[in-house]
């Protein structure tokens, strides 16, 4: 189930809210666990098993780490076990096919397509990816590590721990909530109508971003990609496509994060922010401090700093940057283009750190902004096109390898001009600043009106999205 679906908005969410708030305080984690399992099982009935396994293993490892607190070697051993378990889970479901394919290409060795154990055949290839596995494995890994580092107390209640692992607001698309940020809320959180109202408002903002902004521009990217396939892509079309994809992924993802944060707040949880107007950045490294912040900070805390960060001299720092960005890229998907995308940013970050630093300092802000946008949006090209030959041809067209302009581009631009203006404005802090300047009374009147508009128009788009007329039924 996704948040921007009719079944979520008008069946699952109202029923869940009723069930949750009718539950006595001390049982609310149980309700949260049950509704979250239902949420996960809705799309992935079989993979609920993974949830149970994840809860059990990480829960016991947390206890074991705590128990052997005085025996550091043993405690470390249990942390390692939990990390390895999560990485194996991720490795098997997400990366197995990729690894097997590339092993075959490199060495000609082919791994078995299935495994028969006690008469049961388990397929090993082309297994569907369990939704959200990249997110929840990272969250549960953070738990044992946080407990070991004494950043968070051990969780002795398996139901509360289960509620953390499966918590439906952030289960399938983040933000990646580190255990320590919610440890306190898990046991004692504040349920108030103010939290509910603020959460609901935030949810409406996120819903509008996802349904109205992200979905509205998605078709433009698809059209440009199709034009590339048909050989009619122009440079202008290519750049419009990259812009469209960049806006789509930003509003899709940050909208989803807003909805997650809002839902969390309704249930009394305080999640960290995940985006901070990334397209206002004036360098690639700033972009990554503003984009998918929960992932960047996860890698910094649990990988970059443990590797030694930037304290071991230039060679080691370079190595660490490359490792972290290889992993960041690979985390996004089991395909070479994602690895390339990660390394592409590693290259820019290294350049900015060592070579461009002085140049950038002297560059006026608008130019730095332009430079960052070009780096980021070309990056989206690498990100969006898994087939590297398609990606190469597409980017070549953007940089002059194709006619500059065609009549179709004029039509496209006229069709999307207003949408682009809205998307660009929504990427800045203009809205937030404008809102803050309004007198309190105006805010009070506007809030319910804007919420109603968001809900109404999003519902219209969602109902029409399912619109599938069978016109030639009567031919």
């Amino acid at each position: 189930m996704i948040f921007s679906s009719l079944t979520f908005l008008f069946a699952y969410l109202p029923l869940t809210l009723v069930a949750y708030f009718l539950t006595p305080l001390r049982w609310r984690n149980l309700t949260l666990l049950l509704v979250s399992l239902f949420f996960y099982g809705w799309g992935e009935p079989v993979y609920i098993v993974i949830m149970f396994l994840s809860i059990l293993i990480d829960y016991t490892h947390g206890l074991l780490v705590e128990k052997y607190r005085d025996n550091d070697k043993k405690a470390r051993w249990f942390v390692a076990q939990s990390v390895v378990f999560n990485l194996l889970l991720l490795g098997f479901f997400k990366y197995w096919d990729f690894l097997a394919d590339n092993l075959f290409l490199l060495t000609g060795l082919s791994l078995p397509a299935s495994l028969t154990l006690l008469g049961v055949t388990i397929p090993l290839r082309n297994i569907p990816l369990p939704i959200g596995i990249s997110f929840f494995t990272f969250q549960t890994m953070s738990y044992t590590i946080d407990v070991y580092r004494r950043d968070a107390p051990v969780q002795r209640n398996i139901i509360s721990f289960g509620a953390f692992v499966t918590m439906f607001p952030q289960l399938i698309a983040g933000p990646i909530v580190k255990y320590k940020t919610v440890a306190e809320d898990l046991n004692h959180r504040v349920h108030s109508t103010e939290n509910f109202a603020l959460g609901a408002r935030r949810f409406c903002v996120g819903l509008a971003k996802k349904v109205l902004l992200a979905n509205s521009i998605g078709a433009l990217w698809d059209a440009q990609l199709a034009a590339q396939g048909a050989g009619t892509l122009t440079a202008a079309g290519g750049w419009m496509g990259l812009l469209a994809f960049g806006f789509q992924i930003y509003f899709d993802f940050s909208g989803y994060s807003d909805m997650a944060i809002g839902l969390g707040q309704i249930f009394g949880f305080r999640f960290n922010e995940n985006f901070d107007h990334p397209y206002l950045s004036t360098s690639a490294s700033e972009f990554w401090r503003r984009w998918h912040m929960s992932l960047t900070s996860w890698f910094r805390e649990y990988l970059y700093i443990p590797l030694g960060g930037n304290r071991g001299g230039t060679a080691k720092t370079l190595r660490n940057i490359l490792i972290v960005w290889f992993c960041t890229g690979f985390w996004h998907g089991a395909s070479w283009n994602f690895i390339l995308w990660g390394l592409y940013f590693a290259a820019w970050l290294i350049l900015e750190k060592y070579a461009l630093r002085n140049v950038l300092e002297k560059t006026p802000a608008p130019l730095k902004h332009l430079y960052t946008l070009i780096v980021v949006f070309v990056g989206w090209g690498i990100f969006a096109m898994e087939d590297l030959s398609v990606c190469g041809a597409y980017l070549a067209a953007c940089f002059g390898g194709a006619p500059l302009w065609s009549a179709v581009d004029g039509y496209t631009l006229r069709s999307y001009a207003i949408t682009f203006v809205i998307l660009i404005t929504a990427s800045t802090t203009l809205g937030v600043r404008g809102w803050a300047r309004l007198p309190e009374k105006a805010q009070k009147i506007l809030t319910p009106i804007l919420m109603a508009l968001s809900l109404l128009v999003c519902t219209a788009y969602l109902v029409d999205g399912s619109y599938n007329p069978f016109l030639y039924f009567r031919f």
Partner: protein
Amino acid sequence: MTKAYSRFLTAFFCLFLAGLLVWHVLLPDRGQSETENRTLAQAPAFSWSALVSGSYTEDVEEYFADQFPLRDGWTGLKARMEQLLGKREFNGVYLCGDTLISKVDTPVAGAVDKNLSYVDRLAGKSDANVVLGLIPSAAELWKEKLPAGADSWDQTALMARSQVDFRDALAAHADEPIFYRTDHHWTTLGAFYGANALLEVLGKESLKEECFTPEIASDNFNGTLYSQSGIHWLEPDTMEFWVAEEGLTVTSWRTGKEEPASLYDRTYLEKKDKYSAFLGGNQPLCVIKNENVTDGSKLLLVRDSYSDALAPFLAQRFSEVHLLDLRYYRAPVSAYAAENGIGDIAVVYSVQNFISDVNLVLLTQ
């Protein structure tokens, strides 16, 4: 936020979500959507195997969306929003002033050549005279009405393969209402010009406009493009019947049995799908006999729905016009023509159907 204001926002949010849920539950499920012209998904039956495979939850989502309260109102609201944003294309339909024009998608590579070759093979197989007539769509004839730069598949090259020159016949009258503004079909006027183009190829005398007295069958016709686009604010179309029913006997084979039928099924005029009033819409086989034409000439039309408006005109010059639909009629066409003493076979398709049809292969049987 004050407590009272928080309560107000909370209540408002919950009431919106829960209110629509309650409405959805209380609203009786519909079997059909008139506006969309299709059957709606019904509540799926639960089974463990369907749950495990994931099909149960998918069916529930489809059911939930199809039976959503005020469905048509929501689609209309979306179209309005898109219009405000400056969009000109709505679910594959271009809004061109007061007219909706369907976008023609580029056909799958090779599909057009295949379908053309099937018609050639029928010509080689049958003793009857076989002609192909392709009716260009509004996107071709009203090209200048499309938004500047709007993409639609170029039908010019395909037109050269049509033995019946519907294109020129219609283009000469492009400033007249030859297509509906809210439906993808040609109007009765368009079909009249088309009929003369076909009659010319078949060596028959052409029809005179003044011999007909148009009857306004409906002035409230909202067609397929109205439904597909969600644009519900245009003036409805007027639908006309030109050919009088006297002297024409219509026989239908809807269920495999021979049944008497009529040139116009006026019950459709009360429904959304008014175009189906012509001959009563889709059917495997239909024969129109004209007792006033006594030369025994017989025409077989291999049809799509455009032929339903065309056939009444053709029946003015033939003793019998047979309409055969390849999607429902599965016996060989050449054998049917031989058994019934058919002199001329006209394969008449609209371009949009011809380039995407997968049943033309049956012509080669």
